[in-house]
């Protein structure tokens, strides 16, 4: 009898042992309408005064010693290296006082909370109202809700210098439209919803993945197959290319409930609803090469029509896509990003060379490519130690990462 009980207990253990639930991220109820109704949005000169590197003067070192503050339109964002946290806040000036309300969120865990900041008139608010000065010494005085306490925690930031900028420019490119599902960013990877959040994560560009449906529609999806990692519906199993676009529209929902978007929808939304300046099309369906290039050309024309400064690159990650591109009658009509050997990059006259980070910093080759008029982006750096090393010792024009918040914090504060 004893052994029977033991076996029953073991069976119960096996049945329950395969499920690993992630901690839920709290839903915040933040209404900025009343704040926006009584404040005036800060203009571009005030935005540059606010942006910069700030010293953390309180908060028990939760966010490290320095953080980067950046204005993305009227939204004020903060990026931290320690904890890998971003803030996104709306608000504006009421007289000589800047008022901000939003949230903070750790991208590597469930930590989140409401954040409120104020810049008093004598601590930089008057300079913001007048659009004068460089903002050095400006104090962002705030409080944040923290999960371990019912009391808000004070957070005081003092601007010490301008944010670092690279003369040639620098792209912080968010993988899969902003980051992986596993980071629980509040939106599924490769969706319009996530792409709209990407600038708040610190990204200046995105990489998106393109698969083909059964009827040859280019959709934005990373994996060739559906799994519980990416979709919620049990009816979606096996290859993406087994399903028609119409069927996907009807039944397919991603893990946060979004539809699987088409490439055209994502590019249009990126142009219309974000300030991102770079899109890397990671082509995983070589049979759609002509179709993808046509969509890319239309998007480039649309961006030009809208006056948007944005580069959209046809990515060539492997020999299958390379051969399809070589055979395409549309070859040479769109800018190309090539991940392959530099000789192929030259043959295609690719605008961007994108070597894998495991190939090393390759300083001479990178420099040579840049002299030839190409940008060089390295992929995919998620480890802070590698980010430090590649920023300090390399001279890349951009980095692809799943943690744009971390890269933005390291790059802009330049704490190398």
């Amino acid at each position, binding site marked *: 009898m004893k052994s029977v009980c033991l076996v029953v207990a073991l069976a119960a253990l096996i049945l329950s042992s395969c499920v690993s639930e992630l901690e839920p991220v709290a839903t915040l109820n933040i209404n900025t309408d009343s704040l926006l109704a009584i404040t005036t949005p800060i203009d571009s000169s005030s935005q540059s005064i606010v942006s910069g590197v700030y010293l953390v003067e309180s908060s028990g070192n939760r966010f490290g010693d320095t953080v980067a503050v950046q204005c993305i339109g009227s939204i004020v964002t903060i990026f931290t290296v320690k904890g890998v946290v971003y803030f996104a806040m709306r608000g504006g000036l009421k007289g000589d006082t800047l008022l901000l309300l939003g949230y903070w969120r750790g991208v590597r865990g469930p930590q989140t909370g409401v954040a409120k900041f104020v810049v008093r008139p004598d601590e930089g608010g008057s300079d913001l109202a007048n659009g004068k000065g460089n903002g050095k010494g400006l104090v962002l005085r705030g409080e944040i809700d923290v999960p371990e306490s019912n009391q808000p925690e004070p957070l005081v930031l003092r601007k010490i210098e301008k944010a670092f900028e690279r003369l040639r420019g620098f792209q912080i490119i968010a993988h899969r439209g902003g980051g992986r599902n596993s980071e629980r960013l509040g939106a599924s990877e490769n969706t319009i919803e996530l792409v709209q959040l990407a600038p708040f994560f610190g990204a200046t560009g995105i990489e998106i993945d393109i698969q083909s449906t059964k009827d040859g529609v280019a959709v934005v999806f990373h994996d060739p197959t559906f799994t519980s990692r990416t979709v919620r*519906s049990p009816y979606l199993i096996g290859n993406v290319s087994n399903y028609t676009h*119409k069927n996907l529209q009807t039944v397919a929902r991603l893990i946060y409930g979004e539809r699987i978007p088409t490439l055209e929808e994502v590019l249009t939304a990126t142009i219309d609803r974000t300030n991102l300046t770079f899109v890397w099309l990671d082509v995983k369906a070589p049979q759609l090469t002509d179709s993808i290039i046509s969509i890319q050309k239309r998007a480039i024309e649309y961006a030009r029509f809208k006056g948007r400064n944005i580069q959209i690159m046809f990515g060539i990650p492997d020999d299958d896509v390379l051969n399809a591109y070589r055979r395409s009658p549309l070859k040479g009509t769109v800018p190309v990003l090539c991940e392959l050997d530099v000789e192929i990059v030259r043959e295609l006259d690719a605008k961007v060379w994108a070597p894998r980070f495991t190939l090393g910093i390759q300083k001479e080759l990178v420099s040579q490519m840049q002299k030839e008029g190409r940008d060089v982006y390295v992929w995919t750096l998620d480890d802070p130690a590698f980010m430090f090393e590649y920023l300090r010792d390399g001279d890349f024009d951009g980095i692809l990462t799943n943690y744009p918040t971390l890269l933005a914090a390291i790059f802009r504060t330049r704490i190398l």
Partner: protein
Amino acid sequence: MIESILAALLIVSASPDTTTIMRSDSSLRHAYRVEATIGGLIQATRYPDKPTQLSNSNVFPGTTFFGRLMWHPDHLLSVGVYSGFVTFSREKVTAPDENGVRQDITLDLTGIPAQVVFAMQPGNFQFGLGLGVYFLTSHTTVNNAERFSSSDYEYGVSSWLAYDFRLHDAITLGPEIGLHVLSNMGVTCAMVGVRFKVDMLTY
């Protein structure tokens, strides 16, 4: 993890089947048996969420028809293989197409389990656990005309508890309840039904 649990299961089950030795039932005169079990069960399948945004529920009726072949030595533990056909769910939804025209879409998910099973049989009871894969197929039919399917496999476990009434020296009939758990997909099925067991070979 699972391997170590199974090893523990084997160790604790290695004691002789004293129940069998003490009984005078003619089918249990021999120490080793090969048993075949077939059964049919109705089930309730629970998905973690509604499977589509058009679905009304996340719980669906389904069926399982199975076959199990077990080798039962002179111990409480028996081992074998398990397969069959599982209909996890079948539903019909209505959605407009891109032109706004109503279309009826039938969706179903079926599976063929292929598992190694371990069971214990104290008295007339039997309970067991299966570990392996389910070969899944999703069918979609639009307006009873356009039909396509997609397949994949998923790891899963099954378990059951049954009671056998002896009908004949070598044949038993009895109720069985069971579970399918596909934890990666968050799918759980609870089943109830009947089964026939035949002692195919004794030696």
